[in-house]
């Protein structure tokens, strides 16, 4: 029987890995991810989880071990955060190039300096070009659900790519919420064991990851691009199947909240989405025609979905909890990219909550009211940093 437990986002990730019958776990601890691997270590030590738990000396080695395990046909899992994820960079690219469905949890934490352990999406978004599928979670339940779903999506023969399931530092990772821990049999029914067609096997030796000369390299990379093109449909298919089996919709590519016929569309990612939904309710009660799109899947980027979603919309207000220097907020930039030549719409990028700066309902409401005001006054500036000390009075009033 499934049971409800009060668990942190970190424990939800660990239980997600357990229910996915992960066979190899290789990880290195880092705040605020440590509890994920501690919990898995405990589950393995107590015999509740049948996995090889490999202690490694770095995140780079953690992903290397997962790659080797996945190449050998094992379902592999790791978890990291911020600087640990950055150290993994080379191997994140390797995992996608080698087409290995390694799933990891990343706890979104700001990158230093200044040193910070608090919520910020820059760590994950700095890895957006590594060929990982990226799922941004809103709740602890979604963390558990997304780990299970990620294996199902990634191990599909048309996809065969690695994925990152990400959750905001402390806001989810260390905050306890009721989470349904599914019955193992139910998960087994949904997620069959991993059995790739090619794997490391001493009886049938194969060579993996060898040289690709210029006359073939590009063709191999094109195959990855093809898999990414198929990924959106696969994600939605698995999302639907998940809903049928577990009675819960984790949000697919974009979760739409009261978006029908709206004039103003607010876009959020991660944990601020739940607070934002309350604010949307409040604004709608006050007569504003505003809705929210929660960008759940950042890779593959839901280009078509944004085009559909913005039909008839006057203003798109995007809240980015990250900033790429010399470019802007990642979500806003990519949405603009998706809408180019398709929609004539005002789009404003709000840089919010970097390094864990608190995003209260009041601040979120002021951001949304600013977006709403653009309908009449037009775009005042493309990018605005919200709640900097120099403009705090405006956003907190």
């Amino acid at each position: 029987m499934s049971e409800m437990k009060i668990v942190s986002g970190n424990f939800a990730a660990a239980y997600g890995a357990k229910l996915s019958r992960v066979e190899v776990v290789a990880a290195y601890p880092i705040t605020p991810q440590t509890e994920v691997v501690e919990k898995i270590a405990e589950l393995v030590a107590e015999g509740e989880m049948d996995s090889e738990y490999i202690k490694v000396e770095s995140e780079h080695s953690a992903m290397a071990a997962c790659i080797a395990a996945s190449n050998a046909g094992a379902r592999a899992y790791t978890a990291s955060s911020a600087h640990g994820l950055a150290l993994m960079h080379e191997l994140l690219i390797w995992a996608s190039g080698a087409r290995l469905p390694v799933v990891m949890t990343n706890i979104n934490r700001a990158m230093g300096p200044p040193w910070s352990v608090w919520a910020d999406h820059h760590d994950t978004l700095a890895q957006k070009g590594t060929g990982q599928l990226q799922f941004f979670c809103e709740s602890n339940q979604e963390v558990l659900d997304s780990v299970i779903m990620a294996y199902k999506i990634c191990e599909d023969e048309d996809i065969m790519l690695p994925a990152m399931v990400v959750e905001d530092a402390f806001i989810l990772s260390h905050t306890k919420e009721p989470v349904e821990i599914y019955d193992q049999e139910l998960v087994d029914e949904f997620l069959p064991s991993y059995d790739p067609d090619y794997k490391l096997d001493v009886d049938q030796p194969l060579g993996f990851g060898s040289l690709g000369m210029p006359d073939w390299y590009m063709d191999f990379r094109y195959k990855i691009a093809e898999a990414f093109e198929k990924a959106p449909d696969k994600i939605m298919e698995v999302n639907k199947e998940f809903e049928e089996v577990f009675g819960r919709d984790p949000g697919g590519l974009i979760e739409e909240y009261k978006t029908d016929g709206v004039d103003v569309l607010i876009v959020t990612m991660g944990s601020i989405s739940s607070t934002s939904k309350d604010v949307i309710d409040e604004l709608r009660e006050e007569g504003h025609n505003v809705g929210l799109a929660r960008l759940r899947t950042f890779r593959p980027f839901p280009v078509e979905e944004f085009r559909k979603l913005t039909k008839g919309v006057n203003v798109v207000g995007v809240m980015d909890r990250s900033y790429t220097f010399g470019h802007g907020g990642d979500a806003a930039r990519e949405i603009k990219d998706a809408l180019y030549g398709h929609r004539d719409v005002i789009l404003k990028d709000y840089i919010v909550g970097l390094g864990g700066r608190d995003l209260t309902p009041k601040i979120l409401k002021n951001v949304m009211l600013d977006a709403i005001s653009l309908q009449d006054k037009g775009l005042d500036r493309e990018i605005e940093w919200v709640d900097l000390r120099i403009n705090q009075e405006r956003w907190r009033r």
Partner: protein
Amino acid sequence: MSEEEVFRIVIDPKDHRDLPRAVITDCPSHLMTKTGSWRTLRPIVDLEECIKCGICWKFCPDVSIEVKEEGAVVDYDYCKGCGICAKECPVDAIEMKKEADYV
């Protein structure tokens, strides 16, 4: 393993549709990729001078020299022409010559 046995996963791929999803081969990829083609200098062994000491074999970073009955024999499929063998040969039996003169 012969060259013909390589890529049994995919025989004679024409384009990306024939390839496995990643670089997965039935045998070491060097059988497909003759890295010796990168060479600009070619070691020429004077077998009259060669004393079969095996120093060149020991130093060759690409395992491309074998000391046979007749002396040191270079595998030009994989020798990249670094010249270490010529430098280390105690009797100066190896001379580096321009690859262009041989192709």
